[in-house]
Structure formats: structure tokens, C-alpha cells
């Protein structure tokens, strides 16, 4: 029994020492080269072209489709933010079409 415990202690020490040694050494960082998955989701239905042509260059459709129902005023503010702050080059007619689409499909009616 004592011999078994001693053997166990030796095994434990043999395992722990290299681990401790490794922890003290600086981590060897390795170069990374990866691919990101792409989304093929598109907006559908009347007026969807304005979104597919203007929104998907910067973010996938899921960002919009996962939003809750929001008022037209909130959707207008979101589209304004994309244009004025995030500098999305969206023509005025398209911006109006985008807001209409969002208020129609993701609107809360007020």
C-alpha cells in the first residue's frame, strides 16, 4: 500500500514538474489563417431590392431579420445612422424604400 502510494506520488511529480515548467515558459504563438463562413440570406418580397442592394455589403441579412418589431420612427433612425454615421452610400429614394420595407415587415404599427 505504502509502495503504491509512493509510486503514485512519483507519477504525480513526474506529471506536475513538466507542466509547471511549461507554464513558466512564454507561450509559443502560431500564425493563423482561417476562412469565415458567408451568409446567403436575402430580403424577399416587395421592395426587397433596395435592402439587398444597399445593406448586405456591410452586414448579413440576419442582423435585420433578428430584430423585433420596431416603430417606423425607430427604423428611420436606424437607417439614418447607417447613412450619417456609418457613411453607407444610400440614395435618398432607396433610403425611403428601405424604411418602408422595414416598417411594413418588421413594424409595430405605430
Amino acid at each position: 500500500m505504502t509502495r503504491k502510494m509512493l509510486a503514485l506520488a512519483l507519477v504525480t511529480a513526474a506529471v506536475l514538474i513538466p507542466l509547471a515548467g511549461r507554464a513558466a515558459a512564454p507561450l509559443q504563438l502560431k500564425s493563423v489563417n482561417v476562412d469565415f463562413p458567408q451568409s446567403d440570406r436575402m430580403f424577399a418580397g416587395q421592395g426587397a431590392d433596395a435592402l439587398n442592394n444597399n445593406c448586405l455589403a456591410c452586414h448579413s441579412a440576419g442582423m435585420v431579420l433578428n430584430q423585433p418589431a420596431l416603430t417606423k420612427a425607430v427604423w428611420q433612425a436606424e437607417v439614418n445612422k447607417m447613412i450619417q454615421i456609418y457613411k453607407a452610400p444610400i440614395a435618398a429614394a432607396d433610403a425611403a424604400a428601405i424604411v418602408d420595407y422595414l416598417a411594413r415587415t418588421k413594424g409595430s404599427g405605430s
Partner: protein
Amino acid sequence: MSTQPSDFNRGSLTRRLLLGQVGSAGLAIAAAPAWAQTMVDLALPGGPGERPIATNFPQKGAMILQRTRPPLLETPFEVFDQDVFTPNDRFYVRWHWAVIPTAVDVDKFRLAVRGHVDRMLSLSLKDVQSLPQVELAAVNQCSGNSRGFFQPRVAGGEWANGAMGNARWTGVRLKDVLDRAGVKAGAVQVRFNGMDEAVVPDAPKFMKSLAIDHAGDGEVMIAYAMNGEQLPLLNGFPLRLVVPGWYSTYWVKMLNDIEVLDRPDDNYWTKTAYTIPDTPHANIKPGETGVTFVPINRLVPRSFITNIRAGAKVPARTPTLARGIAFGGDAGVARVDVSSDGGRTWQAAQLGNDEGKYSFRQWETRFTLPSSGDHSLLVRCTNTNKVAQPDMANWNPAGFMRNVIEATPVVAG
């Protein structure tokens, strides 16, 4: 009060039993039906709560897909029941801009330190790693974690509770890097910039700033490892700022540029975005005007039950185990209390190992429901500054800083 989202259609209790019997998470996961891993319902009020489970992001396991590009990936809530530290391949992901380098050469990478300093620096990763190594356990939580539970709902990343994680961060003190460059008198802030860029060139670069005293406090770190391994690219490889006790918006990923400023930072992401009402719990009424907004800053305490999902069946009149995680925010966890009678009485939970004041802390307790039928389990964390989670959910237009006492409805029978 709110409910926790249901996560996978797989009871944590059942899974835990499986784990106890086979002693292997891998086996338990393999035993789950494939359909259970394809979609998740986050049970967001008013919907939509359905999200796919994505397994095709590099260096990542099964994650809740909030947005493909730029990636927003949420940690499935069951992960928080498995360990006090969140595995790197399950750690949530949040990017602002879509142009993210997909390759980083560790020999060519350089970290610039410039601005109001005596010496400009261009540090290789080896240079960074030659500085004294420090290690710290800390929670990284998105400012908008749990935004999807705000009522009325607000626009933004519609997260459930999984835009958070806890890791052991290894790296160097920001102070040591700044000392090498020599901060000049009159410096007021330090600005951090990463390698990500917007598709539209005129869009504001994602940059964040900290006050000079905060940056040099010896706790703010530049991490090159999390949980003993290099960071996944999507979590900021090769270097990420770690700002213990502060919201993740400051934890700039793929950090390659540090600029010491002799004037307050007026860039959009520091000055305008990520601001909260300057009110208790960052709470205002919808539509309220005349509110002063300030940059979001310190984390606040939160706690969650991780082994019982919303709507679970539990036995009546039988002591039942509840366990979970808590964090104190900018201070340690002093106590975690659980109520099974709607908050009339509270019992102290036993706390697990203390991994440091910025870490998740596990807790557990046993509760007994006196009768069959509907009940609600509440859990409340109080931190070492004696700050406790509030009874009422906060509201603000950006959906930031939720930390209401969480309620988990259960059915006793």
C-alpha cells in the same frame, strides 16, 4: 422580473445525470439528437427568438448564430453550467466592422505605441512576450448582453444571456508597455485601435479610450492568451486589451495601435456610441428626455441558475439542487442568495472556489418547493462593495447594462 431563455431542447439536469454516469462531456453531447443542435429558441419577448446553431466558424464549436457578417456569436447557456471558465471555442464573439483579417503572421505582426510619448514603439509579439507575464481571471461581458429581454424591445444585437464569458487571461501589463514608451506629462487618455476595418472607408474606425490613470493602473492588460492558449482569431488574436471589471467594448480585439492622447478622445465610438443614462442602473423611461448620457464603464453584479432551464419540471417537497454562476462586476462576489417563494425569503448559497474578484464564481444550494404547480426561482448576487442586483429591470434606448434579478419559472410535481 425576467425569465432565462430556454437553451437547447435538452434539460441541463438530464445532461448532468448523463455526465455523472459516463464522466465525459463528449459522450453526452454525442448522445444528443442532431436536431437539438440545429436551432435554439431564445424566448425573447415578442420574438423572433429562433436562431440557428452554427458550427462552421473557425476555431469555434457550436455557437448561437446572431449574425454571420460581421460575426455575432452567442455562447449557448448550457456552457455556463459546465465550468467556471468558458472554453475558448465556446466564448462569444462580437465584431463591429466586416473587414477582419483572416490571417495573422506572428513574425510580421507589430504593436505600435505612439502619440504623447517619449519614444514611439513598434513591438513584435516576442517583444511583448519579453515583458513580465501576468495572469488574471476576468469576466468579459458585452454592454448589450441580454438586450433581447428589454421591454419595450430596442434595436441592436438581440442577445439572450450568452454575450459573456470568463477566462484566465495571460499577457503583460499595459503599464509596462506605456512605461517603455515613456508617457509625457499632460497625457489624459490612451486610445486603442485594432486591425478590423469598415467596408466603407469613411466610416469611423472602431477605437476606444481609457483615462490615463486607468490605463496605467497595473490591472489593465494586453493579453496574448486566454485559458492557457492563444486567442481564437475571432476573440482578438494575437493581442487583446483586457480591462478587468469593465464592459467588453473597451477590450479592443486584434490590438495593434496604442495612442497616448494629450486631449480627450472625440472619436465616435468613445464619445457618442456606448453611452448610458447617468442615472441609477442606467435606467430611464422610454421616451424620457433631458437625460445626460455618459460612456458605459464598470460591470455590475449578475447571477444565473445554470442547471435548471425555464419551464423545467422539478420535484415538489424534495430538496433539489440549484447551481449556477455569479459575478460581482467591478468587485468580488460577497454572497449569492436564492429565493423559491417570489423573493419573500432568501437563503444563502454556498460559493465555489474564488478565482479572483473579476471572475465568475460558482454557487450551489438546495431548495424545497412546498407544493405542486408553478413556482419561480430567483437568484441574487451581492458584491463586496455591498451592491446587489435590483428587483426591477432597467431600460435604456441602447439596451445596455441589464442586471435585474433573474427569475426561472419551474413546475413542481
